[in-house]
């Protein structure tokens, strides 16, 4: 990757951040209409982790994520129309309506299917990376997961195996400090995660505030090493989920966290910061394009048909 001029990068990052933010806000707006009958886990506030990493990827690189994957899906270039149609349960959805928000996939853009069971996709990313290595390709796999996933045994098994086999996997922990409503203190004996990961011989770096450019710059280096045959790397990106765990609303009145936390994070909102950096005109143009793109995607979803009943029985087994 030759470095594009800095302003181009900012435009690209902003466009992606803003697109994700607006898509999810639109999802939240639509949600009360009951048109989207599937649990949605929004990433509003966490966009920089998806964007900073994915911006450095080639089209043939692979990402793998969780039920909270709208952001990574969009950042990696997943088809937006197919995503909205999927949320609507339509035949034109990225999985024909069978998946819903929690199981987005777009293999055409090398987005592996996401999963509603925490931690399950991490070793699957490794398997994909094994195939890449076996075939002598220089592609890489990015595995996204939450802070909660690091508590599952499979996460540790995966770290050990990735390091043992020197697989081209970038582990990205989106540490939004909560698993549902449970703060880290009730789940982690200590917060020395990166240190722990390093004991596997995996280089690890923690980002205290999800600055999109720092994430991007670091990822570039990590991935360059990986393409050159280096082993796995790890990033822990501290971030904050602005909305409730699942669903469109806010839940600062629920008692498990304080609105002041949100305010501190929204003060350093990356979408706003990059937007401001672009200047009013350029930003407005991009925003308009984005609104247009989203409107088209929603319209596509609205006007698409539901799958035929016979679809219930297709794809149980592959031929």
């Amino acid at each position, binding site marked *: 990757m030759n470095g594009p001029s800095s302003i181009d990068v900012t435009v690209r990052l902003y466009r992606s951040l803003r697109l994700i933010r607006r898509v999810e806000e639109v999802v939240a707006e639509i949600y009360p209409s009951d048109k989207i009958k599937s649990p949605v886990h929004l990433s509003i506030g966490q966009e920089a982790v998806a964007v900073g990493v994915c911006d450095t990827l080639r089209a043939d690189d692979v990402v793998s994520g969780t039920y909270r994957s709208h952001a990574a899906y969009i950042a990696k270039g997943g088809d937006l129309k197919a995503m909205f149609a999927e949320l609507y*349960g339509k035949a034109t959805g990225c999985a024909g309506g069978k998946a819903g928000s929690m199981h987005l996939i777009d293999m055409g853009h090398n987005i592996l299917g996401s999963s509603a069971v925490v931690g399950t996709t991490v070793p699957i990313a490794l398997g994909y990376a094994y195939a890449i290595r076996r075939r002598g390709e220089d592609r890489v796999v990015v595995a996204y997961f939450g802070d909660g996933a690091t508590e599952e045994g499979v996460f540790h098994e995966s770290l050990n195996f990735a390091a043992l086999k020197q697989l081209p996997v970038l582990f990205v922990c989106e540490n939004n400090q909560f698993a549902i409503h449970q703060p880290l203190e009730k789940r982690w004996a200590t917060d020395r995660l990166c240190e722990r990961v390093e004991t596997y011989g995996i280089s690890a770096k923690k980002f205290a505030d999800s600055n999109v450019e720092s994430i991007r710059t670091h990822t570039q280096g990590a991935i360059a090493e990986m393409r050159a045959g280096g082993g796995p790397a790890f990033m822990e990106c501290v971030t904050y989920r602005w909305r409730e765990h699942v669903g469109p609303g806010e839940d600062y009145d629920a008692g498990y966290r304080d609105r002041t936390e949100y305010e501190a994070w929204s003060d350093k909102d990356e979408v706003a910061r990059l937007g401001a950096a672009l200047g009013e005109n350029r930003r407005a143009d991009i925003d308009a394009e984005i609104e247009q793109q989203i409107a088209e995607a929603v319209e596509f979803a609205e006007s698409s048909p539901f799958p035929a009943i016979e679809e219930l029985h297709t794809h149980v087994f592959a031929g």
Partner: protein
Amino acid sequence: MSSPAETDRVVTYVDALLEGMAQEMRLDDDVFVFGLDVDDHKGIQGSTLGLVDEFGADRVFTTPLSEDAMTGVAIGAAIAGMRPVHVHIRMDFLMLCMNQLVNMASKSHYMYDGQVTVPMVVRAMIGKSWGQGAQHSQGLHSLLMHIPGLKVVAPSNAYDAKGCLTTAIRDNNPVIFVEHRLLYYTDAYVPEESYTVPFGRARTVREGGDITIVGVSNMLVECLRAQELLSEEGISAEVIDPVSLVPLDIETITASAARTGRLLVVDNAWTNCGASAEIVAGVMERTDRPIMARRMGYAPTTCPTTPVLEDEFYPNPVTIAEKAHAMVRPHAADWRPDPERAKLAYQAQFRGPF
């Protein structure tokens, strides 16, 4: 839902669970409840709400996302004489617990020749609707039923929910406690005082002579509606709730099926090697009378998210009544009740997101 309680207190399934839990915790200091999110402000849809305030964080606590180890913790605490209740908001997550449940919990009492007992309860909720989809909707109870040493119970109503939970907690064996999320807001007469519902005794919920319908967990509710629709057609269905799946009161079911000559088992699960297969096979082994037997359950597919397909995935009062009708009157014209009349209150009530 009718239930044999002598009380006029109507309580929801979720409140019955909560009450049963709290009462046992008051009675026995060794009882504790843990699992992801049992102590948050949602309290497992309300079924553990407030327990932490009354009993403290030592006896009511969330855990890291570590289902495998936490199941081991339950076993170890049980061996030490405590009575853990380990809660899972989706039964699908039990797949992470299988090693401990199958290889340790079920076997310890036997393998160690009675030197230890493992009195633990695993509460597992089955999800449905609102696009819960492939991994948040599975009823996987038959996997546990297969393993000797585990008890499996699936209360279909608030009365049984409380009584079975009490029985489960007092039982000296690992008990898998199957809850269906759509039942949570159904209500029944539930006595305030503590009581037990015995395992291994099926309940004949409606008597009838033309066909025996067995409904497992929430499917009992759907079968009851089907029974009403059938009775309008002059078909008299006997409806049986097994209540507990291990031990299973196969005798009551067999006696009924031998009498009616027809057996339809409806489970909230796949049928292949499912509870429904066991019930059909168990009945067939016990009687030489020819019995027409059929099973209903999930479509033999993964559960899709979109409502148009999800609706087809599950049995419902219409399809149950239709199937029963065809069994009783094989030569009659096809009959299918009006879907509008078959809607269940508990389904209409339910609304996402969650």
